């Protein structure tokens, strides 16, 4: 139904799975996405009674337990609609891959359905928020609706791992040279900066267990972006943002002369472009203050 409406161009709502971090560390990501959606003519309808997705897709063949939380989310979502969207790249990865497994592996699907006492057949579309903007709204539409073009701002798109890999299951964009976020940045009037580390891993949860490993990963990514002229780095993942934004104080301690760079969520950037009040974009929660560079460009 939702899909049919979207084809006809009628305004519609999307079922939305926020995920744990969107309620805590990435509140600014959640809020800006909800507000931008309204301005673009659709609403993010939060899935009721959602629980954690488990945060890692289990890779070993006999690990069913870790598949149960995401399967339950998919089954609950299917009762409410046909398309599920997420913002967090980690949740997106886990949910999309579980959906893929539910479609392809009949034996596991049956076992899982038994455990969760539901009957889900894998017939849900799982789309990232950016995919909705590209496929359902269209970047050309966004270009038209931009109120404050981000002209002069050099933004580097950082994809990380979760949106892209594994390619067969995610199918988000090219596995080595993705351009979706760059197209999005350009639709908002900013200049996109290409850099070789845009699909490198941020070190993920090693920031708790072996912080020095994650700091090193973050340093490589940020210095590569800076070397290529980035003034802000754009991210879609709360985990990556924690590592490449919050770790900048550690990097500065280790590498003297390291210049900090603000890390924004894609929707925060979209918020500026759509003319939302900059005070409502949650910049106070960003570790590296983006206001100086945004002021310099006359965007706030």
């Amino acid at each position, binding site marked *: 139904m939702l899909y049919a409406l979207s084809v006809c161009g009628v305004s519609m709502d999307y079922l939305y799975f926020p995920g*744990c971090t969107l309620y*805590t*560390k990435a509140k600014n990501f959640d809020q800006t996405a909800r507000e931008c959606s309204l301005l673009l003519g659709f609403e993010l309808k939060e899935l009721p*009674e959602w629980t954690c997705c488990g945060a890692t897709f289990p890779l070993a063949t006999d690990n069913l*337990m870790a598949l*149960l939380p995401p399967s339950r989310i998919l089954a609950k979502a299917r009762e409410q609609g046909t398309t599920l969207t997420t913002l967090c790249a980690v949740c997106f990865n886990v949910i999309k891959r579980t959906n893929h497994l539910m479609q392809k592996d009949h034996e596991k699907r049956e076992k899982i359905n038994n*455990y969760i006492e539901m009957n889900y057949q894998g017939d849900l579309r799982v789309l990232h928020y950016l995919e909705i903007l590209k496929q359902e709204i269209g970047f050309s539409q966004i270009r038209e609706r931009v109120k404050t073009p981000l002209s002069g701002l050099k933004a580097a798109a950082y994809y990380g791992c979760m949106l892209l890999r594994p390619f067969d299951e995610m199918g988000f964009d090219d596995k080595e040279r993705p351009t979706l976020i760059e197209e999005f940045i350009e639709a908002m009037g900013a200049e996109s900066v290409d850099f070789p580390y845009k699909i490198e891993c941020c070190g993920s949860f090693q920031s*708790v267990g*072996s912080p020095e490993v994650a700091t090193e990963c973050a340093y490589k990514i940020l210095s590569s972006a800076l070397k290529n002229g980035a003034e802000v780095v754009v991210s879609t993942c709360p985990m990556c943002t924690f590592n490449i934004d919050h770790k900048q104080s550690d990097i500065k301690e280790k590498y003297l002369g390291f210049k900090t760079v603000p890390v924004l969520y894609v929707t925060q950037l979209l918020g500026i472009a759509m003319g939302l009040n900059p005070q409502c974009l949650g910049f106070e929660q960003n570790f590296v203050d983006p206001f100086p560079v945004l002021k310099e460009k006359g965007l706030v």
Partner: protein
Amino acid sequence: MLPHRDPIGQSPHSFLREVEKRSGENLNLCYQCLKCTVGCPTAPYMDIRPNSLIRMIQMGRKKEVLESSAIWLCVSCETCGTRCPNQIDIGVLMDALREMAVDEGIHAKEKNIHLLHEAFIQSIRRGGRVHEATMLIDYKLRSKDFFTDLLPGIKLFMKGKIPLLPSLVKGRGEMKRIFERCTKAK
């Protein structure tokens, strides 16, 4: 050369076969091109690099492989599997090796990572959603490492990013039941 015999494995082939069964990957396809190791973000910190790990599995060196820090430093970013010319998914392999290490009761060299995984899953089991404050307290108690990251933690708390109280989601009872059923079945 005689095949290497490991004290806890019977023959080199039995370990290789077990790993292949658990991971579903054909490790005999590896021709040591090193693409996995070159692209791996955590390989510089591993005691055994991913390509060497595969070679050692082929040689049956079970003890060294399962005791390595490498299997716990892998963050499943899947860069290796994406680039492998022989379609070996090393991320899957690493997950299988971690499971085998846990099953064999081998303590992780990177023990904090394992403890973090446990604290995380307990947090979901308790509340349905992750509550970072209690999860991190649980992790700190398990790892007995109280001071690392204390300052960033306080900063996050001050920015209102770590709420004091967990959100009480209705689905949590259901999640608890699902977990219990699955643990029993195992």
